[in-house]
Structure formats: C-alpha cells, structure tokens
C-alpha cells in the first residue's frame, strides 16, 4: 500500500484551516499536517476584539473545537516555526530541528503586523493584537474605561477600535498611510470615514506622526506618545495597526519566486510545482495588470485557502483577481468594506 499523499500546510489561519478542511473533504485518505506558530487551533483573528465583550476564554473563539482536527485527521502542529523549505527534496524544516517531508505544500503563513520604521525602537511599548494572547494582554493592561492610542488603524485595528468604543473605552487614533489598510485611499476618500469615526467618539489625530513612545513608570496612564508636531498624547495602551508585512525568509530555498510575498499563479501555485500559497503571504498574478498583487482581507484569504486546496487536489481554478475593493460609510454611519465584514 502506497504511502498516503502528505499535504503540508504552513499556517493555520483562515487560509490554512480552510485549505485543510477542503483537502480532507476532497481526499479522505491523504495526510494533512498543518504548522502554526500559534498555541491554539484556528480562530478568526478578527474576532479577537470580542475579548472586550467578555469572551476571554480562547475556546470561545475557536472556529472548530480541538476535537475537530482529530476527527478529521488533521495534524495540527502548533508552536511550530518553519525555518526552511527544501523545494527539491520536498521537506519542511522546523525550528526545533524536525524535518517533515511533503508531497504538496501550501504556504499560508500570513503576515505579521507591520510597524513603521520610526517606531520600531519603541516596539516593546506597543501592544500587539496579532494573537489571542496579545489581545488578552491589551485587555488586561487596559483599565476599565481607559484609553488606547492607536497608530495607523487598518481594517483590523478599526474593528478593535469600534469594539473598544462599544465597550466603554476611549481611543485616540493617529492617522497615517496605513489607516484603512488594505484599502488604499486618497485623502478625500478617507475623510468621511474619519468623520464617521469621530462621530463615534474617537479622538482622530491627523497630519501628525508619532515619533516616540515613553512609559510612565508607575503612573497612569501608562504611555505617553510624542508627536512630530510636539504634542504629547497619553494613553493606557499604545497599539499600532499598520497593515501586514510578510515573512518569507523560510521560503528562500524553496525554489519559488518571491517578491514581497510568494509569487503564485491565479491557481495559487508557486513556481515550484509542489508548492502552493494562499492568504496574506502570496502575490497573485494579475494577468490584466501584469503584476503580482496581494489580496488581503479575510474573505479573500478564505477563498484562497479553499481554492488552493482544490487546485492541489487537481482542480485548475483561478482566483478571481478582480475582486471588488471598496470601503464606505453606510447609512447607519457604520464603515463597510468589501474585504471586511464586522460581526459584532
């Protein structure tokens, strides 16, 4: 009896999870191994703001209970960092020195929060929100009714921002280029959106850059943010939501083409026949634009995961590279996006 086909997925986010699920649906006999740096199974990261609504047990956020993986024969390798992919030998190497051979590899490692370079020296004073534990840290560090100073304010950040407002916190938003990322907006496009935010009670600071963050040792609020115009703003927590940056160093030996992300065909296949990519890490060939483009947003990501899985199993479906990219304020004054749907 031949060895079952081994599908390895790097990343257990929306793309990875979706791919795994799809692979299993499409091939009951294959082996599926999913690597993630996370400690817990897949949960929708966009639901992290719910911790402010009292959903502080991570289990409440899971897309599927842990048993799902065992029931579906999906090996979920958590806290595993892939450090190398050998594209010709078809082996994934993990940070802890384990090597895992694959027949097909789907890279859905996503991206990490991007921090503007001028703030990188202050990263330790900035609360992240990329994981449940980061979210919990914010939750724990933020006094009831306290203030969050948010730098940037991408679509993920805005979700949190709105939730914070809903739950009685205060937010100061320091607007920058990545505000409303991944939507790329002009100043005009951005104005009504900011207005809507102000309307919800957000302190919006425009035309000023945060240049320094200092802790207020023992004092409250805990953070002081210096702006380039000389102003200083205080907050209990400083957060930066400036979009995502991909981490593709581990793919350098994978015999795949890399630009900022992994370059894939519309079918999400990389230049290595055994390797696919999906989600925030990949740049998909837009034949019209003759360019590889990122397609962020959870809806896109989910689609990519399932699509990649199908294609791995033999389908040749292309990704719709022309998906709608639009953001607006609806009649209720809520910000809406074709990429992001906020689910309170």
């Amino acid at each position, binding site marked *: 009896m031949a060895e079952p086909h081994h599908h390895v997925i790097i990343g257990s986010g929306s793309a990875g999870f979706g791919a795994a699920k799809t692979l299993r649906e499409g091939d009951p006999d294959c082996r599926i191994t999913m690597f993630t740096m996370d400690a817990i199974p897949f949960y929708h990261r966009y639901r992290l703001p719910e911790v402010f609504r009292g959903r502080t047990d*991570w289990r409440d956020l899971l897309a599927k209970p842990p048993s799902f993986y065992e029931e579906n024969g999906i090996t979920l*390798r958590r*806290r595993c960092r892939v450090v190398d992919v050998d594209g010709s030998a078809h082996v994934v190497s993990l940070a802890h020195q384990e090597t895992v051979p694959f027949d097909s590899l789907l890279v859905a490692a996503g991206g990490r929060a991007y921090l503007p370079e001028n703030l990188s020296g202050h990263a330790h004073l900035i609360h992240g929100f990329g994981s449940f534990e980061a979210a919990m840290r914010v939750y724990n560090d933020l006094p009831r009714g306290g203030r969050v100073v948010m730098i940037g304010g991408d679509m993920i950040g805005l979700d949190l921002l709105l939730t914070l407002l809903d739950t009685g916190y205060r937010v100061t938003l320091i607007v920058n280029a990545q505000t409303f990322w991944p939507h790329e907006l002009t100043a005009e496009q951005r104005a009504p959106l900011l207005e809507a935010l102000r309307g919800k009670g957000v302190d919006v600071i425009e035309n000023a850059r945060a240049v320094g963050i200092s802790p207020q040792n023992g004092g409250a609020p805990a953070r002081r943010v210096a702006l380039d115009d000389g102003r200083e703003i205080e907050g209990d927590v400083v957060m930066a939501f400036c979009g995502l940056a991909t981490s593709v160093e581990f793919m350098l030996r994978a015999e795949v083409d890399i630009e900022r992300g992994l370059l894939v065909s519309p079918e999400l296949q990389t230049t290595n026949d055994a390797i696919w990519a999906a989600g925030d890490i990949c740049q998909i060939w837009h034949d019209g634009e003759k360019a590889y483009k990122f397609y962020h947003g959870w809806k896109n990501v989910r689609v990519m995961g399932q699509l990649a899985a199908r294609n791995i199993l033999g389908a040749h479906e292309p990704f719709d590279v022309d998906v709608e990219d639009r953001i607006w304020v609806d009649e209720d004054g809520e910000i809406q996006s074709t990429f992001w749907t906020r689910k309170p």
Partner: protein
Amino acid sequence: MNKSGTDIQFAICGSAGDGTIASGDIMKRAAAAMGFHVIAFDVYPPEIRGFGKCISRIRISSEQAYSLKEQSDVFVSLNDGHAIPHVGEVRDYGAVIYDDHLIAPVAEGGHISAHIRPAQIPYGLPIRQISEQATNAARSRNIVVLGYVAGLLDLPAEAFRKVIAQKFASKPAVVTESNIRAFDAGLEAGRGVFRYDDVAVGAAPTAADGEAVMMTGNGAIVRGFLEGGIQSYFGYPITPATSIMERLAVELPKAGGRFLQTEDEIAAISATIGAGFAGSRAATATSGPGLALMTEMMGLGVMAEVPAVVVCSQRGGPSTGLPTKTEQSDLNLAVHGGSGDAPRIVIAPTNVEGCYRCAGMAFEIAEKYQVPVVLLIDLYLSNRYETVFPSDKNVFAPKPREVPKVKEGEDYKRFVLTEDGISPRALPGDAGMMYTATGLEHNELGKPSDVLHMEMNAKRHHKLKSAVNYPGLTTSKRFGDMGKVDVGILGWGSTFGEILETMFEAQAEGISCSAMKVVMLSPLPEGELRAFFDDCKVVLVPELNYQGQFANLVSGAIGRPVVRLNRTIATPMPVAEILSEVRRLAAEVNEPVAAAAGGV
C-alpha cells in the same frame, strides 16, 4: 475530591540521566513545602544505566488524594523519545512543556510537538539553551523546566529554591548555586508566558498539625524504620526497593546504625536474620525475585522465631518480569512462600502514611511475635510520594526489652509453650540463657526433636493471632457508606487508593457502596472481613494480579464469594475500570433476576 480546591498532577518524563526523577523530587518537595498534599510516583527504566525512560508523576492537592490521576495536568518532556508515548495522558487544556530548540535533527514525528493533541496546550522553550546560558551546561535542564513551571503557574519560587538547596546540600556550594540559577532562568522564561491552559493552582490548604513531609513509600519506610529504632540494614539492589537501601546507606549511619550492601538477597535476609538473632533491629528490602530467594531464610526466621523485617516491593512478575512496573502478584509468596507451615506477619500498607506507620511499628511487632514481618508494598507505593504528617517521634521508639528470667538451676526454655504462644526471648550476651536457634523442629529448650512438632506448629500459628489487634496498627478499615450497601470494594496495598477514589465517585453517582482495606494479610482480620461481607450485597476485589491472589486468600479464609477485577497492565488500576465494574455490579444487585442469572 473537592473540585474547587487544587488538584493538579504533574508529570515529568525524560531519560535516565536527564535528572527527571530529581526534578520530580524537587517539585513534590516544593509542593509539600507549600502545604499541598502530594502523591507522586516515579517510573524508572529497567536499564541499568543509560537512556531508559523515567517518569515522575506528582499529584498535588489541597485535600488528601488517594491515588494518582490517570491524566496529568502538566507534562514536561525532557526527552521526547520517551515522552511522546505519554503525552496523551495530558488532559485537555493541560500543559505540555518541551524543548523546542533541539540540537540534533529529528525525523518527522520525532519531536513531541507532533504528538500534542489539539486540546493540549504546548509550551515550547529552549530548555537546553536556557540551562546552558544559566549554568554553562545542559545538565540543569531538569531544573530549568521546574523554574519554567513555577514561572508559568506562578508557584512560589522560594519553596523550590529551598528544596533545591536542600537537595544539593551535600555537594559543593557551586552546584546549588548553579541549579538555583537554572531554576531562576526557567522561572524567568515561564513567567509572563501567556497561558492557554486552564491549570489552576489555588492557595495551599492551611497547614495540618505538625510538619508535613514529602515521602515516597520507600522513604516513609525508611523514616518509619529510623524512628522505630532500626539498628542494622542489609540490602541488595533491586527495583523498586533499591531506594530504601540507598537512603538507609546515608541515614542509618547518622543514627549510629550499621548498613551493609550484601552480595545477594539471600545474604541480605541471612544477615538480617542473623542480626535479629543477635538482638539488633534489622531489616532488609527487596522485590518479588528477591523475596523468592529469601523465602527459605524467612522460613528459618519463622522456625527459629527470630524477628526480622522484610520489605517486599512488588513489581511485575513472574521471574524478572516487569522490573519497573507495578503489580500485586507477590501476595502468595509473601503470605505462603516457603516450605512447610510457616506463618508470618504480612502487613501491606495502602499509602505512604501507612508505609511510615507500619515500618515504624514493624520492629516492635516482629520482636513481640518473634517472627519475620513482611511489609508488602509495590512499586507504585514504593516510588510514589505523598505528604505524610509524621507522628511524634517517640511513638515508634523502641520499648525497653524485658530480659527473660530463669530460676537458678533451671534451664532456659527458649521455646517454652505458653498460653499466648510467645516465649520470652534471650539475646546473645544475656548471661545464663545460652541456647541455639535452629531451623530444625525443636523442643522447648530449642533442641532438635520431633516430639513436639504439632505443639510447636500450633504455637507458631497461635502466637500471631493477636497481631490483628495490635494496638495502634490499622489492620483493616472500612470507608464510605456504613451499614448495608449494594457494593463493597475490598482491596489491599496501593490499589486501595484507586478503590477509594472509585468509591467517592460511585457515591457521587448515587451508588450505595463501601470500601474496605485490609492491611494485615497474615494473619487476616477475619472477623472484620466477615462483617464487611455481611453488609455488602456483592464484594468486588480489584487487584493488580492475574490470579486474584487476595481474593483467593480472603475467600479461602472466610468462605465467601467475591467478584474479581484483575488487571496486569503494568500500571496502577484505572479508577475508570473499577468504577465501571462497580456500576455494573450495582445495577446487577438491584436487578435480582439478572443477578441470579449472573450467578455472582
């Protein structure tokens, strides 16, 4: 078990040489120092030296627990190769701690992370690196993880540091310092790590009377021996009794006693009997294979009426069997082993506290009845730790000896037939009472003679009768519902912990049940047993052997039927299995027709 209180089981798994057991040792001592009740159990490798598997399991709780749990809450891997098969024992949302910075490549599945179930929470850390950073050596990985656990669960670090300091007290100061550094480094690594697990360590219970001490069954035996005035010890290494020897090697000389590692078990029991003859409170400890070797000399002890204390920690058998696995299959050997009618006292404590008490009284009993006393425990009890609250030290202190009196001109009758069968015993050095002890049947003077064989046999049996009522010694005890019950669970030895846990669970389910432990296996407390059988519609005897040796002993002695639950699974009896049997029996006894059909 009070669910609101702390009840956590740690497991540390590694290779021999990783310091696994030491690590567990520190953990349990620290936990005990914190005031928790502790039950712990180490699993050793059968290999003499090298890379065998070691697992140290430590259950800490705010209330007395009676057995280890089948699932651990926190699991530390110091060696994935060994840990992988055991990672499954970690409960959902329990923690698995491991090194995620291996130094040598492993194939797929060679790292524990490949085996952690999705509901278990992985905690990887560069254990080796941290150790090397802290101490310039990887040797302290076992201490690093302790620090990590302490940091992770926010346990009081000082308790650990104290225990570490004690543990390495005999080594150069740098060793302690280095281990403290390793601990602190681990502590640092663990502190602030976000926890996805739900392992909750509550406040320690308020301290009970007296100082709580962490002991293994073996350690408790050693302590009991020391308090009971042990003067000499003869041992031969055998798993799982070795640690009794090793500990006494250190402690006995401190107490002015004499310790000798003999050339074999036969020599060990021989010297024990010899020393006992000379009036020394002497003991030896062994396991089944050793006890098998000792039976002949035990018979001599019985015949010559020489006190001796023999610890037998059972392991899997027969023959070499499963040296590092627990079992309760030496009962026949302990109670009946040897040639001829050789009655002896066999005491099988059910927990560490019991080990301590039985060992403390063993010499007094042996000397009173002038017979070898077997302390029958098993690997599970030998190696498991529990918090014990030792008695006032004087409790077991030897009572002054009464030198027999002989009338002028009369011969000293060493084996004089008395009403209670006990003859006053002279010791070498006592003037005017020279006699020769012998394995031959003898007359009252001790001279070889077959004339009184029947009487002497009767004497040797009869004199033990009162041992079941030996003051201060629990020879049997009933727990749970008193009066008439549906199901009685009768047990002995270490398994009684699981039985008790089972009984609590069954009671919680509304099953009318009661549990009884029998500590003295020879002579049997027959009266108490009969009463128990009278009260129970059905009696279940779970034990870790294939034949139902205790069931046979009891039913043979009192002539009542029992239901057997026998497992030889190389591990303690799972509570779940006893429970399911109890449920089945409870249902059965309440359905008379079915019960009748079952023919129980």
